[in-house]
């Protein structure tokens, strides 16, 4: 099968070209032996099937990070390179182009964002550029579908040009000469879009804009998610799925171990998808009908923000804050992803550069960021007591984030890098690309998370039958119930929550807890352990030793926060006097000397 590689700098619209060329059968996978992801798809070309590979974006063939190393290794596999170039940034892009032309692989150049050059006052003489390189050059505007046909028509191009541009310096000199020859820029006045871009970056205007954007996103996510649940997911389960399960329940005899494992316990004689806890009832209802709709709407909105080019601006705005916890602005992206599901977020943490940054980001995420599933859980637990309690919960999480973040910044050895980020212009997103990316993220969630959820229900049902929860509750309950100020039965929910948090919710609601007890339990359930899917992935990413450390941080946080909330929360609000010790301890934490080493080489 013929292999076509799409290669280019980051932010050149490569993935738009990719999604317009390929069909629905795109898969994203790891490059062998690495954690770097790439996507590939297929296209019918005459009688042939052509494989199209979207190689991770790279600025150079002298790699500075893992993703770029992979890009270089993948080069050898290609029969044809399509070098996607941002024609509004021609000079910078040509450095890679020249390096590629030395590789003796057939290559064509796509001058993407062609439609934008005009209003930016950039003139590029394509014929002259062709003469310099001696390869086909095609102006494209992938979002609008312009030039894609011409690209497809060159798939059988197989001429190899033999260029040699010498070392780094003489190559840049050559880039300079070519640019002087082919490009002419008449800088235009600040456009409205430039003006908006500046506003989103300057802290004074950017932060209010970010708050408005996040608030609107939240409203859209909720609206779309609820729509999905109300009009699609629940009707499907009630009308189509219920009769099948009722049949199955009858066949299995309505009770007994096997029945309870698969269908679950009947609640007042019928199946309750939320509380029966069978593999085929609650086990698939919660992830598919309660969580997946929100995940879909969350990643849809996020994909839009990503493709408009807004997300890097958030990185810039939060850079200051993130340095306080030993990270830099870019690491906000995995933390934002984690609000959807921790699994894709854990995968995004891979892209951070140092081991220290990966550890800090993973621990912060697993401990303090509630995913959609946890969010649904705490809303279920606290909603009836009023929105005030949700605010308390988030306030506690924010304070905890600052605390363990600052502590880790002081105590974790290693080095952190600094922010260096290209800020792409705002662009109209391509709906095909957004949908394709959404589809891959959902597949990722279903593949990684769903089996774990089912495994969790399975193990829980077995443990339950064997009386393991009861034994653990008896052993730890007497101490924990006094520490946290909750009844012993609530401790059992915590223990079950190791495997399934939604199960914990089912245990807690019938207990009739007070508002304070419910608040304590909700906070504990969010922070004390991520779901097993996240746990397994983090274990793989961090290794057993660091995962053990992260787990200890989570458990310590749980004990401290649980005891503190029990101490400081009185009747229906936090006692102001009892908040003071927190401030005091924080001031002490700031005084701890840092163990981080500055590595000039890698800043």
């Amino acid at each position: 099968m013929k292999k076509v590689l799409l290669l280019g700098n980051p932010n050149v619209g490569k993935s738009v070209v990719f999604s317009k060329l390929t069909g629905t059968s795109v898969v994203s996978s790891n490059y062998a032996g690495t954690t770097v992801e790439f996507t590939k798809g297929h296209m019918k070309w005459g009688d042939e099937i052509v494989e199209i590979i979207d190689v991770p974006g790279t600025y150079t063939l002298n790699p500075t990070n893992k993703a770029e190393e992979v890009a270089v290794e993948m080069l050898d596999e290609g029969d044809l390179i399509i070098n996607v170039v941002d024609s509004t940034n021609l000079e910078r892009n040509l450095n890679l182009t020249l390096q590629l032309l030395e590789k003796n692989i057939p290559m064509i150049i796509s001058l993407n964002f062609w439609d934008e050059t005009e209003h930016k006052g950039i003139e590029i003489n394509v014929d002259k550029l062709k003469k310099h390189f001696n390869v086909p050059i095609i102006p494209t505007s992938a979002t609008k579908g312009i030039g894609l046909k011409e690209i497809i028509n060159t798939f059988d191009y197989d001429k190899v040009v033999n260029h040699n541009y010498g070392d780094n310096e003489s190559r840049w000199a050559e880039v300079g000469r070519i640019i002087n020859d082919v490009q002419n820029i008449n800088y235009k006045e600040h456009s409205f879009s430039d003006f908006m871009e500046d506003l989103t970056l300057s802290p004074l205007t950017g932060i209010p804009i970010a708050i408005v954007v996040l608030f609107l996103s939240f409203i859209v996510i909720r609206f779309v998610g609820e729509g999905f649940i109300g009009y699609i997911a629940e009707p499907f389960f009630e009308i189509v799925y219920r009769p099948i399960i009722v049949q199955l329940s009858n066949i299995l005899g309505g009770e007994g171990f096997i029945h309870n494992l698969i269908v679950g316990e009947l609640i007042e004689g019928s199946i309750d998808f939320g509380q029966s806890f069978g593999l085929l009832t609650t086990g698939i209802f919660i992830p598919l009908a309660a969580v997946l709709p929100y995940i879909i709407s969350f990643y849809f909105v996020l994909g839009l923000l990503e493709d408009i080019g807004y997300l890097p601006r958030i990185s810039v705005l939060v850079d200051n804050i993130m340095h306080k916890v030993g990270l830099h602005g870019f690491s906000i992206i995995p933390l934002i992803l984690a609000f959807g599901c921790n699994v894709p977020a854990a995968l995004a943490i891979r892209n951070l550069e140092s081991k220290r940054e990966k550890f800090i980001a993973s621990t912060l995420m697993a401990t303090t960021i509630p995913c959609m599933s946890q969010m649904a859980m705490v809303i279920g637990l606290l909603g009836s007591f009023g929105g005030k309690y949700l605010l308390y919960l988030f306030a506690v999480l924010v304070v905890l984030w600052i605390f363990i973040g600052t502590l880790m910044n002081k105590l974790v050895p290693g080095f952190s890098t600094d922010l260096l980020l290209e800020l792409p212009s705002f662009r109209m997103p391509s709906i095909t690309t957004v949908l394709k990316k959404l589809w891959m993220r959902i597949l990722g969630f279903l593949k990684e998370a769903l089996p774990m959820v089912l495994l969790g229900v399975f193990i829980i049902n077995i443990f339950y039958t064997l009386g393991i929860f009861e034994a653990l509750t008896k052993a730890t309950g007497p101490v924990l119930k006094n520490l946290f100020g909750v009844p012993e039965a609530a401790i059992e929910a915590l223990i079950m929550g190791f495997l399934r948090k939604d199960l914990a919710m089912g245990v807690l609601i019938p207990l009739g807890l007070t508002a304070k007890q419910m608040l304590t339990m909700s906070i504990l359930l969010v922070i004390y352990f991520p779901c097993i899917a996240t746990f397994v992935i983090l274990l793989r990413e961090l290794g057993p030793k660091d995962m053990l450390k992260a787990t200890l941080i989570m458990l310590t946080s749980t004990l401290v926060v649980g005891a503190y909330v029990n101490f400081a929360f009185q009747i229906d609000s936090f006692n102001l006097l009892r908040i003071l010790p927190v401030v005091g301890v924080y001031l002490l934490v700031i005084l701890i000397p840092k163990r981080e080493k500055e590595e000039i080489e890698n800043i």
Partner: protein
Amino acid sequence: MTKLKLTEINANKKCKVIAFKGGSNMQTKLENLGIRLNNEITVANNSFVGGPITVISGSTKVAIGRKMAARIIVEELK
């Protein structure tokens, strides 16, 4: 011309890159984004509340963390 750190240049001023006080990895990463020795860049944003500095090089806008920016030595152009 006086040598200054990039962090000392105000918004909307042009300057010329004359040295990198970091490792080769940092230099490569900056070069890839068009911030090369002897290139002219324009500071787009350098806020008094701190945070990254944004510069424009060619038509690329780049955000550079303060620590790294302090290692880029420039001279201001009138």
